[in-house]
């Protein structure tokens, strides 16, 4: 029954379930991501971090959250 209110998205390659209509901002907040140290891509489009609250997530959305790590 619960499934109806849930949607499946892909976050950094992993499939997860979230509440239907959850905003991107809410998801990012829930995951405790350091906003000033990451960039976010939704379905291959870079997201303006200031506008995340108006972005509602849909079934099968693909999200990538990246940051800087050591590299040459």
């Amino acid at each position, binding site marked *: 029954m619960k499934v109806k209110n849930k949607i499946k998205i892909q976050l950094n390659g992993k499939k997860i379930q979230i509440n239907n209509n959850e905003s991107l901002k809410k998801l990012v907040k829930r995951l405790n*991501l350091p906003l000033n*140290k990451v*960039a976010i891509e939704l379905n291959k489009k*870079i997201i303006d971090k200031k506008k995340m609250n108006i972005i509602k997530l849909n079934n099968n959305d693909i999200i990538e959250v990246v*940051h*800087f790590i*050591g*590299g*040459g």
Partner: protein
Amino acid sequence: MKKSDLIIIANKKFNSRLIVGTGKYKTMKQCAEAVKISGAEIVTVAVRRVNISDKKKPLLMDYIDPKKITYLPNTAGCFNSRDALRTLRLAREIGGWKLVKLEVLGDKKSLLPEMIETLKSTEVLTKEGFKVMVYCNDDPLMAKRLENAGASAIMPLAAPIGSGLGIQNKLNIKIIREQTKLPLIIDAGIGTASDASIAMELGCDGVLVNTAIAQAKNPFQMAEAMKLAVIAGRKSYLSGRIKFNIFGDPSSPSKGVI
């Protein structure tokens, strides 16, 4: 020699001519310490997925302050223009970085650069306002094309990435030096301090080192060695070396010999 001998990249001045990569260190703490000892003011960094499940994992930015050290995001691991562009657009979004290192590889074994894709990417990125430091082959003609495409720095390899072989084609590096006023930085293939000195003596403006420091038995000591080698090579270049002579020329006066 001038009192201050700064390197200027995309209108930004730097004292240190050594750029250090931040990969392959045992820990971030070790990396940060090596960077400090090296005196580098620019470090290369990679763009990768955040580990969502382990949020306690330390972040590079917690160890190396991007306000004090210039982060140079790279496109390591990209084998085509599309992926490289995507990576650098994301990098810019993280914190407004425009100065980037473009690196498009063409072969997983040799890690040699794919120059057609590199050139294409340089053109696009430059139009988008990026300041592109371009990892490239040691090919003077391609270096010229990159310059014409708007590159901010030419960064030819000494040898394949991580090989530690040192400069394999001094002649080509010299030709590139002759033809460009852009910052010329040797990127990849440095194995030991003398390799860095040779690069600087050839007239390069800087050297980028990662593996040679990170994988040395004592990375801290090697970081210092690289720092000094770059300074020594630069001073040597500016001093104007003596001419080669196949015969001897006594250092002591021959007059007054008893």
